[in-house]
């Protein structure tokens, strides 16, 4: 079978910068930050008090009955999926269900439910737990709830590869359509890990950013010499992928064409990134798309804001792109929406879709102190117009070593 083309026809988002793609991207272009002091009753017990939280009221989306068995991570994924389906102009009743599926990425799954139930068990000595706890907390729930809502009968797969989970999910959905296993896929990621237990675990890993005391919103400083780490975030993004001819035939709004994907494993260290691994993923994605390196005009970097990631990624970009590395634009939007872990790749993929459509490059916020080891054009502090941007690349690199790179083309 000849590989089939894949269109991106719908998008939905729940993010620290707003709960629709247009608002999200406007906020990015304006350099707004979704990072701030965490609003939680346990904040006094934390060393790290900053996060990128979502302002999300589930009551317009779900009734009480539904909420009793939906972890926050599934609430986010369902809200984003509904937006995506609607924006794709899809009537759910008309879906070819056996040919439609869902791939979702998540890092910590139903962390809220698990954290709360363990607190009840260990701290409160509760005699037993909520009967829904397993199906709320399991990693597959956020995707399966979407499958259930639309009665999808195609592939229903959840990927957990830490920070690259949702890029893997989108890439694998792309392959399912490309090679004929499905015609329409919902794909993306969801994460809701801002619980006491999870934040404490991240604190222990010592990769979190120090709070910028003058301006907590400016705590995440990717590619800046004074960067001190990442800021945990929550949210979800889902896109609709469709086989190209089918999308054209139904007059779907084609946002972009997904043209390349590669994933690989560093296999060098559990947390330290590798130039070779990152470069291989970018190079293989270009090969997959059949593109020369200089076709890429914008890279949405993994850009976590840790000392190690940002210089490693910079070096890997130089290795793959040569001189073109200095001509293309690279930015880390994590400086504004934080690190959404299992949802990061999907949220940043939406940023790439919007960049192509609006011909605009979102900035890297808080880039104040140049680092000689990070010497590319990171679109510092101010977003700007793009000049005929045709292809954008989205990088995701993960603890555990799984890298994933996606390439989208302006339609």
């Amino acid at each position, binding site marked *: 079978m000849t590989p089939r083309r894949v269109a991106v026809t719908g998008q939905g988002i729940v993010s620290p910068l707003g709960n629709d793609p247009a608002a999200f991207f406007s906020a990015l272009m304006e350099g707004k930050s979704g990072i701030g002091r965490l609003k939680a009753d346990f904040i006094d017990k934390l060393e790290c008090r900053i996060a990128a939280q979502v302002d999300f009221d589930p009551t317009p989306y779900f009734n*009480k009955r539904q909420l009793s068995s939906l972890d926050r991570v599934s609430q986010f994924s369902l809200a984003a999926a509904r937006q995506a389906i609607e924006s794709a102009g899809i009537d759910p009743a008309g879906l070819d269900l056996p040919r439609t599926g869902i791939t979702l990425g998540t890092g910590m799954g139903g962390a809220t439910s698990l954290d709360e139930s363990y607190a009840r068990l260990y701290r409160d000595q509760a005699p037993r737990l909520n009967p829904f706890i397993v199906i709320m907390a399991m990693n597959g729930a956020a995707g399966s709830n979407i499958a259930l809502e639309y009665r999808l009968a195609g592939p229903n797969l959840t990927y957990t590869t830490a920070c690259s989970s949702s890029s893997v999910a989108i890439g694998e959905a792309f392959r399912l359509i490309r090679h004929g296993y499905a015609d329409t896929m919902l794909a993306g990621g969801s994460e809701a890990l801002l619980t006491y237990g999870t934040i404490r675990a991240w604190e222990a890993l010592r990769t979190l950013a120090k709070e910028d005391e003058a301006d907590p919103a400016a705590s995440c400083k990717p590619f800046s010499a004074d960067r001190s780490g990442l800021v945990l975030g929550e949210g979800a993004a889902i896109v609709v992928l469709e086989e190209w001819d089918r999308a054209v035939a139904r007059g779907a709004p084609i946002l972009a064409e997904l043209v390349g994907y590669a994933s690989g494993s560093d296999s060098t260290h559990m947390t330290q990134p590798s130039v070779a691994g990152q470069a291989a993923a970018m190079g293989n994605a270009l090969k997959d798309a059949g593109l020369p390196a200089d076709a890429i005009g914008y890279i949405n970097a993994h850009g976590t804001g840790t000392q190690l990631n940002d210089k490693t990624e910079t070096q890997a970009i130089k290795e793959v792109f040569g001189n073109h590395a200095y001509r293309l634009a690279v930015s880390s939007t994590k400086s504004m929406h934080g690190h959404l872990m299992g949802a990061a790749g999907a949220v940043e993929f939406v940023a790439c879709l919007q960049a192509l459509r609006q011909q605009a490059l979102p900035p890297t916020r808080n880039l104040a102190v140049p680092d000689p080891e990070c010497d590319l054009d990171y679109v510092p502090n101010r977003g700007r117009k793009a000049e005929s941007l045709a292809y954008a690349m989205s990088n995701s690199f993960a603890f555990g070593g799984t890298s994933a790179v996606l390439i989208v083309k302006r339609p």
Partner: protein
Amino acid sequence: MTATAELLTQILCEKFEIDPGKIKPEATPENIGIDSLDIFDVVFSVEEALDIKVSNDDVKVANFQDLVDLIDRTRVAQGKV
């Protein structure tokens, strides 16, 4: 309606937004619109409210009256009447 039936009705309506009109002695879980996990959820809430402990094995109910009887039997057996 007995006090137990009233309590169960209240929990069902609050938890699952069920129309109280659907809750009759002969109503099956299907008639009410709940599944087996929901029944356990209701039983756990009743356990907390009445400070009783229902064995999982005993939670076999064909209709609403069975559930009321189960709770009443447990209350008597555990001296929580």
